[in-house]
């Protein structure tokens, strides 16, 4: 992006600044998006999102299927770069720096902003090497063993795998694999961890383990979680953003409807659409 286009992008309607909610007050905003629109080809998947994500909080993103939750999340660490058709407009400020600005290296962005995916995706390597791989790649090779133990402990997996670290990761259950992926993501000491429906493929016990984990992790990290499970959002999130699909003649695109403290979203939402969704009156 050259200086000219930067200038035309910058003043994009900065929608009415929301007053920072209570739990966020005094907290540093890790992300501030301005007029963020992500399109696949011509059609926008999510449009004109202004949202601030605060440090050491869990922020949940909820909304009906197809409203662009994953798309939004993936735009926060430039994972959308990998999809050739995806186009990002607007700005995503990470600690004040536009990650889509000039001279920003997506590799550096992703190194600070980790991601856990919906489907557990361990590498076809041993449990140990799954966690070690990122550390080795990023040159964090000192104290490898203790870093790995720490990450696995933080991910509440250590006790279950400490005797089989050299065994293949595919031998783990789905829930264990997902916690391994979380361990892998936090081992490299990111600043933010993005989680896209991390528990949707898991049974209730594994799910509750992951939820407990999020409570632990937010002391050290900033977490953003996409979830379909309303109770889960209510249980783990401090802040909740509700997205919905806005129908237009040419299909529809996702918009941010409401963003507030989680209890408020679930008990006294200010938008009818939010209310409909959280009370289950929404398709």
């Amino acid at each position, binding site marked *: 992006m050259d200086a000219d286009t930067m200038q035309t992008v910058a003043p994009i309607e900065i929608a009415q600044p929301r007053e920072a909610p209570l739990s966020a007050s005094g907290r540093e905003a890790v992300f501030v998006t301005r007029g963020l629109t992500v399109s696949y080809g011509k059609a926008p998947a999510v449009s004109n999102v202004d949202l601030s994500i605060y440090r050491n909080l869990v922020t949940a993103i909820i909304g009906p299927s197809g409203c662009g939750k994953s798309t939004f999340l993936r735009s926060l660490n430039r994972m959308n770069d990998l999809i*050739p058709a995806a186009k990002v407009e607007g700005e995503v400020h990470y600690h004040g720096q536009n990650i889509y600005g000039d001279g920003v290296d997506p590799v550096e962005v992703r*190194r600070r902003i980790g991601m856990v995916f919906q489907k557990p995706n361990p590498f*076809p390597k041993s449990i140990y090497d799954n966690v070690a*791989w*990122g550390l080795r790649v990023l040159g964090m090779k000192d104290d490898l063993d203790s870093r790995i133990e720490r990450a696995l402990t933080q991910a509440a997996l250590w006790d279950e795998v400490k005797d089989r670290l050299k065994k293949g990761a595919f031998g783990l259950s789905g829930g264990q694999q997902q916690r391994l992926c979380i361990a892998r993501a936090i081992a490299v000491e990111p600043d933010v961890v993005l989680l896209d429906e991390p528990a949707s493929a898991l049974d209730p016990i594994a799910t509750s383990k992951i939820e407990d984990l999020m409570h632990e992790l937010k002391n050290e990290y900033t977490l953003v979680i996409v979830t379909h499970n309303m109770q889960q959002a209510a249980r783990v999130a401090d802040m909740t953003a509700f997205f919905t699909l806005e129908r237009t003649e040419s299909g529809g695109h996702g918009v941010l409807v409401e963003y507030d403290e989680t209890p408020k979203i679930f008990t006294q939402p200010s938008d009818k659409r939010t209310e409909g969704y959280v009370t289950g009156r929404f398709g």
Partner: protein
Amino acid sequence: MSARVSAVPSTTAPSLSSRRRLGDRLGDGALHGLTAAAAAAAAALLIAIAWKIFDVAHPAISKYGFGFLTHQGWDVARNKFAALDFIWGTAVTSFAALLIATPVSIAIGLYLSELAPRGARTVIASLVELLAAIPSVVLGLWGILVLGPFVGQDLEPWLHRHLGFIPLFSGTPENAGILVAILVLTIMVVPIISSICRELFVGVPTELEEGALALGATRWEMVRGVILPYTRSGVAAAVILGFGRAIGEAIAVTQVMGAGHGIHWSLFATGDTLASRIAEQYAGAAGLQVASLVYLAAILLVISLLVNLAARLIERRFTYQRTGGS
């Protein structure tokens, strides 16, 4: 189950007898029989070919035994034959061709699956695969007309000048010889290996690639740390398939290798492979020479079958790994 419930037979019970037309049913049976027959015929043919080869080679096998494999020399005038020269020629040309072709093919596969502009990928991929469609006799002709003179007059003198202290590059440059054969074989196997590699790399699950990149890995680190390990056995199987192709090639090698004898360290020397020797001499051969040539064929057959088997085993292991074995 309670008897009271099941006591009344339903009048609308679905009929389970076939309602298909007779033709369909016959077709099903015919398909079954036909495929079974084809499979049996293939197996029978393989056995028949192997039996015939060993039968015709029998005079040479009983005369020379396994010593045939470990001795040098092929003297038609004195009616003395042995295979080691050609086993050597086959091994050197095939291994060297694979040594060049493997990294080149992996690079092409990676380029086409990960790096090339999306629009150009399929076009370039089909062009590379088209290389494999060139009849080997045509490639051999090109070897004689273009590659041979280039190797004999430019490449070999250059190698000799700069790397002549290595025995491989000593000797007198020739327009035909081992090096030309190696290059021709390389051109033949690169399309095979690279197209398999490309498919393997494309088949790596996106989730794995994203998992690597989300950790802050560069594309190259992702290739090295995830794509190559994930496809390792598949690539190995592809290389072995290429090997099978290289050892079996007769025509093009005959055209460019110069029908030499002996075991030389120099790649400039002429030579022969098992396959090319058979192609050159069978037409004019008689007596023990025929049996000896067919003995060469038997050796080639056994090696080829083993190579194919190895590729299959490795491929099986590969599928096993991908589906969750550790």
